[in-house]
């Protein structure tokens, strides 16, 4: 690089990149704004959860807090709430990940074009990081602005550690967003031409595999610890390991379900494509075969929620049986409503998680329609009935999800039974648990169906005009 170019590069710097990122976002089409908007919402959710956790963690001893049905008053149950909130972060991240995919193809092309026009890899990475980071900053700022007055209203003299936590969360969310934004572009940055003809990785990412192995090891470790001593009798260790074991197991079952979905989608696609008798099944099967991991990625969070939800129903049954025994034997420390309150709150959290996951699924399906709009319009122009394309779209979600949700359900039930057998004196069979995967499956189909109106609009011949 010449001296002049060097100077120019230095002076343009971050300020120039902010301007460029802003110009690119401003000039982009509606879908980019959807991404920004939904990212702000997701970041606000993540920051909100993080803020509550940050405030709860440094809290010590007995308090009287107006919210949370008494669960936040005591050290022990507070720990449980923190774990539940942490678990709730997973679907929020899933939602954020799905949002990042809106208009991803177009954004990748745009940034690759920037690279072709001579932008340095760091510059492109910085622009991408800024795009996501600024949206996350907006969300985190909004969440913080709401949370701080609420906190001050509830807690008159908060711990300095809580303040530190709040600042850390408010800054961490946009930083993490920016990092993810930059990371997701590593292929664009590596090759400015490579992404224009986008090739998908042939399997799950190495990162994902590594994370699964790590999870497996930690789950083994925790489970071993459970069997070596009875963790539920050790006051401190039990508190930490019990929920952690459940957390790790849930993640592990979820990860296996993703691997299974990816693998099963591919096989299912191949088998169905060879045998399909009608057009909708053929189209759906061939799309699965072409990119089985797209389905797996979209469904990862769904499967996690299925595992947690099914497991929870089992745990709830066992827990209630225990409470009932305690009530009869008058060994309960608190009123029955105190315990059921906790269960209801957890159920609500899982409900929120399910809603988030379904939103992510709907966004993912809509994105898959939007990316293919020209081809779809051409199909309609050629006389392929809209109903066939609509059925193919639903089948694409329904087919791979069926075995995966089944496995996730069985895994969740296993967790529930395991918990029940570990705590209860007599085994309570959670009859309601199988209903959870069924309900999740139904909701997923409904979420996918929300893209049908978009599909109908996409099939408009005006879309033929866009190359």
């Amino acid at each position, binding site marked *: 690089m010449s001296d002049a170019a060097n100077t120019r590069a230095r002076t343009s710097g971050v300020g120039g990149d902010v301007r460029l990122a802003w110009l690119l976002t401003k000039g982009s089409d509606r879908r980019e704004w959807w991404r920004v908007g939904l990212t702000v919402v997701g970041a606000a959710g993540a920051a909100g959860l993080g803020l509550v956790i940050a405030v709860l963690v440094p809290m010590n001893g007995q308090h009287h807090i107006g919210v949370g049905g008494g669960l936040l008053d005591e050290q022990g149950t507070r720990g449980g709430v923190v774990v539940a909130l942490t678990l709730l972060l997973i679907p929020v991240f899933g939602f954020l990940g799905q949002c990042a995919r809106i208009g991803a193809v177009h954004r990748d092309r745009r940034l690759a074009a920037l690279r072709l026009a001579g932008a340095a890899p760091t510059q492109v990475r910085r622009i991408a990081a800024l795009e996501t980071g600024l949206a996350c900053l907006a969300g985190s700022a909004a969440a913080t602005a709401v949370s701080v007055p609420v906190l001050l209203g509830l807690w008159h003299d908060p711990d300095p550690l809580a303040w530190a936590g709040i600042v850390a969360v408010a800054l961490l969310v946009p930083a993490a967003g920016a990092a993810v934004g930059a990371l997701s572009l590593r292929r664009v940055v590596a090759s400015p031409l490579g992404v224009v003809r986008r090739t998908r990785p042939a399997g799950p990412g190495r990162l994902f595999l590594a994370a699964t192995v790590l999870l497996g090891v930690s789950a083994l470790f925790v489970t071993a610890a459970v069997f070596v001593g009875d963790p539920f009798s050790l006051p401190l260790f039990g508190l930490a390991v019990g929920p952690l074991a459940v957390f790790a197991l849930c993640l592990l079952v979820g990860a296996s379900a993703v691997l299974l979905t990816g693998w099963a989608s591919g096989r299912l696609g191949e088998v169905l*494509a060879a045998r*399909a*008798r*009608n*057009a909708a099944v*053929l*189209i759906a099967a*061939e*799309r699965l*075969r*072409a990119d089985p991991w797209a389905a797996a990625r979209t469904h990862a969070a769904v499967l996690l929620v299925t595992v947690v939800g099914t497991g929870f129903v089992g745990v709830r049954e066992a827990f209630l049986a225990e409470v009932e025994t305690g009530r009869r034997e008058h060994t309960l420390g608190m009123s029955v409503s105190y315990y059921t309150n906790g269960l209801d709150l957890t159920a609500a959290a899982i409900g929120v998680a399910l809603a988030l996951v379904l939103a992510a699924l709907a966004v993912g399906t809509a994105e898959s329609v939007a990316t293919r709009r*020209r*081809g779809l*319009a*051409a*199909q*309609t*122009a*050629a*006389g*392929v*009935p*809209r109903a*066939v394309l609509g059925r193919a779209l639903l089948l694409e979600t329904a087919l791979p999800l069926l075995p995966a949700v089944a496995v996730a359900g069985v895994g969740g039930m296993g967790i529930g039974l395991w918990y029940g057998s570990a705590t209860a004196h007599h085994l309570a069979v959670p009859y309601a648990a199988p209903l959870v995967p069924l309900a999740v499956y139904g909701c997923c189909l409904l979420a996918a169906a929300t893209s049908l109106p978009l599909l109908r609009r996409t099939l408009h*011949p*005006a879309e*033929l*005009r866009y190359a």
Partner: protein
Amino acid sequence: MNNGDGKVPLLAARGLTKAHGRTEALRGASVELGAGEMLAVTGASGSGKSTLLHCLAGIVRPDAGSVTYAGERLDRLPERRLSELRRSDFGVVFQFGQLIPELTALDNVALPLMLAGTSRGDARARAGEWLERFGVRGQGDLRPGEMSGGQAQRTALARALVTGPRIVFADEPTGALDSLSSEQVMTSLTHTARETGTTVLLITHDAQVAAYADREIRLTDGVVAGAGVTA
């Protein structure tokens, strides 16, 4: 041809107008297409060629004017019937996009037959014959992304013709091809149309492609500028 000899044209449009937002793509275009005829529509980019094709093929409804196909007013038919017509009586070929990227060439060609109720096996057998006819039988198991542009377009032609349509609408079918592939595609189209008596409406900006047609009309700013007819 159809002009002045009293025969009823297979497809006729009168005074078509169509606006996209504030841009007027068609401003009173009229055109007639005789049975078995191959008509080329030429004109500069933005002269309204594609919009004319969309109106004639019942893909979009004109703002004003009429489109009559075999005695039926296309501009008044409900969408369901139009979709049916496009499936049974019309075939379309675009510059690209009409093949489903995930399906093999054979399945892509078999698809219209399956939609019409033919069993998969029979559909694939007939699709194979059509691929053979267009010289891409050997590429039957490839997906559109794995074929050359010319092979993909010949597959698209096979898909458009496999149901035995009365009219094929081709919008810049050779727009993305080199001259040799373009020649192969056009020769395939011309031969097949002649053998099967299929009527063809061909949109192109390339005079060498237009020369395959029996007749040419030129669009300028949404109206038909002039017509040259082969004696």
